[in-house]
């Protein structure tokens, strides 16, 4: 019975091809828009998640405080208020995954006839874990290298390419500030950071070596920056609080005195970025959904016309034994067939356009099966929702009136 009705629905669509096609167009555009918007939105979210994971998660940094001399304020990290033992104390706290005292700056690198300027980071081995650095070749330096201030370096991919060219940098000696450093490892590639900086344009050396040979330091043991990684995102606020409390206690700051250090949450930036893209994709999806609704209204409109046009047919069907339910099912089925056909076409077009965008602009596109499934479910829902009223109208016709209708 349902099969026979399905055939009839198909027949009814075929009887008015242009009209059916135009009716479907609304659904086609709506579904295609949803698919494209979801693909772009999810692509953006994916891209952001990727860059978050390269930066390292649940990070915050502590910067040493500022000082004022003759009215000139130094800005953060001006005063030597943080030191290595602060870092050690922080690592004893609960909920802390990694702590790495850090000193960084831009320096000129020299290898043979080549030279290159890059970010030089003096730090301890936990830094690699905190920032999610991987080692592409060679090996990382160890705590013993930090203790004995050996001149070893890990270099990023960009540095390797620009300074060493085709040479294998492992075991080679390069100079930073006239000091020879042996390259012990090449870091895995990370790509751009949020601020657009090339994260691979980096050299990592032991903190002690950096302070003694590269940057110099007014007070031995003081550091400009401590990178702290919490164990989980949820623990972050509590961890921040306990770190601040610990440092205030260690620095003997009384109630009411300002902190002599700065705390910056790096993950917050990334999370707000992720939140932005999520909001954007929801917004895009919402706009696309509106076109889906407009498409549904188009279907309702045409179904109403169709019911009026076929009043006599409905009368005949009722006279030969169609129940209200049968008439309702028939018209509902027509609406659903229309909306499904439109949805299928929209899905294909949407996929095509999304792939086209990816191919021509290189934008990251994520096509998920769930998006297609959602589009289909919505199409069915739209068909039933907007088909219901016309179908009910048809089913409630008075058979005598309907038969008399010209």
């Amino acid at each position, binding site marked *: 019975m349902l099969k026979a009705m399905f055939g009839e629905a198909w027949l*009814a669509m075929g009887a008015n091809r242009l009209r059916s096609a135009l009716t479907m167009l609304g659904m086609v555009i709506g579904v295609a828009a949803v698919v494209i918007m979801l693909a772009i939105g999810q692509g953006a979210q994916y891209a952001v998640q990727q860059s978050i994971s390269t930066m390292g998660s649940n990070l915050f940094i502590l910067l040493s405080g500022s000082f004022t001399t003759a009215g000139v304020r130094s800005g953060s990290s001006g005063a030597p208020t943080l030191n290595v033992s602060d870092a050690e104390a922080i690592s004893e706290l609960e909920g802390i995954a990694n702590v790495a005292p850090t000193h960084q700056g831009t320096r000129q690198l020299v290898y043979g006839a080549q030279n290159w300027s890059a970010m030089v980071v003096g730090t301890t081995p936990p830094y690699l874990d905190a920032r999610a650095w991987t080692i592409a070749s060679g090996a990382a330096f160890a705590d013993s290298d930090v203790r004995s201030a050996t001149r070893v370096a890990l270099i990023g991919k960009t540095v390797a390419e620009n300074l060493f060219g085709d040479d294998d940098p492992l075991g080679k000696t390069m100079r930073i500030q006239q000091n020879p450093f042996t390259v012990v490892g090449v870091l895995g590639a990370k790509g751009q950071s949020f601020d657009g900086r090339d994260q691979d344009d980096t050299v990592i050396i032991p903190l002690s070596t950096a302070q003694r040979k590269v940057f110099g330091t007014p007070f031995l043991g003081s550091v400009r920056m401590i990178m702290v990684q919490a164990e989980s995102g949820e623990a972050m606020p509590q961890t921040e609080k306990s770190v601040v409390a610990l440092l205030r206690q260690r620095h003997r700051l009384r109630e009411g005195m300002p902190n002599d250090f700065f705390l910056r949450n790096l993950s917050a930036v990334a999370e707000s970025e992720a939140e932005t893209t999520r909001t954007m994709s929801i917004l895009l999806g919402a706009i696309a959904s509106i076109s889906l609704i407009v498409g549904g209204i188009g279907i309702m409109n045409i179904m109403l016309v169709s019911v009026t046009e076929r009043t006599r*047919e409905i009368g*005949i069907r009722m006279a*030969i*034994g169609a*129940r*209200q339910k049968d008439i309702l099912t028939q018209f509902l089925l027509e609406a659903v067939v229309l909306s499904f056909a439109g949805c299928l076409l929209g899905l294909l077009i949407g996929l095509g356009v999304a792939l086209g965008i990816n191919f021509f602009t290189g934008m990251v596109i994520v096509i998920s099966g769930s998006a297609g499934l959602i589009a289909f479910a919505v199409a069915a829902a739209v068909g039933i929702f907007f088909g219901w009223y016309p179908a009910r109208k048809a089913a409630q016709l008075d*058979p005598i009136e309907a*038969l008399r209708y010209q």
Partner: protein
Amino acid sequence: MAEAVIRVAGLGKSYATAAGLFPALRGVDLTIKTGEYIAIMGPSGSGKSTFMNLLGCLDTPTVGDYFLTGENVAHMEKDALAKLRNRTLGFVFQGFNLLPRMSLQDNVALPLVYAGADKETRRAAARVMLDKVGLGQYAESLPSRISGGQQQRVAIARALVNKPRLILADEPTGNLDSHTSEEIMRLFGELNAEGITIVLVTHEPDIAAHAKRQVRFLDGELVSDQVTDSLPFNGMGIGAVETHPPPGLPLEGGGVPPC
């Protein structure tokens, strides 16, 4: 012949109009037995169409009872009435009322769709009925490709396909020329000879004369009921009609125009 297919008692139908309740049908009593061939006559506005709609279970009466095959259907639910229309009754209309987009075979099979028959049963039954009305070779054609008389034959085949207890024909020859009308009436005659009960609504006396019993409506009331039980014009064409005044007419005192 003893069993009553239709028995109506005190059947009345009123419509609400701007001027108040208008009684289209008033206290009609009538019994139709199995195998009868009955013509319902009357001018427009006489209530015969209202009566036909009630007999056809398309409408429900305001007062009175209607027993169809012994069952009182006067106050049945819509779905139950639809089932009766589907299984017990067969309709033939003035305008043929075939669905234009469907093949003749699918048109004939349509009542079986609503009866829930499977595809093979539908196809086979439709073929048998199309052959019966002599149009088996056009099974795959669309209604627009055949003549009016042929369309009416297809409509009759559709009315018969569910093996109904009776056929209700509402002005079945109203859109046909006299020659084709005779053919259709001959087909009804043959069906009646096979034992199918036929109720025919017409305002043409010569068409009514084909039936074995004529009842006449006027102003919502049944005014005459005459049994002739003969087919005086069978196959003789329209010329013969004029020489035989329709049997029902003399009783009316000549006050009612034939249409």
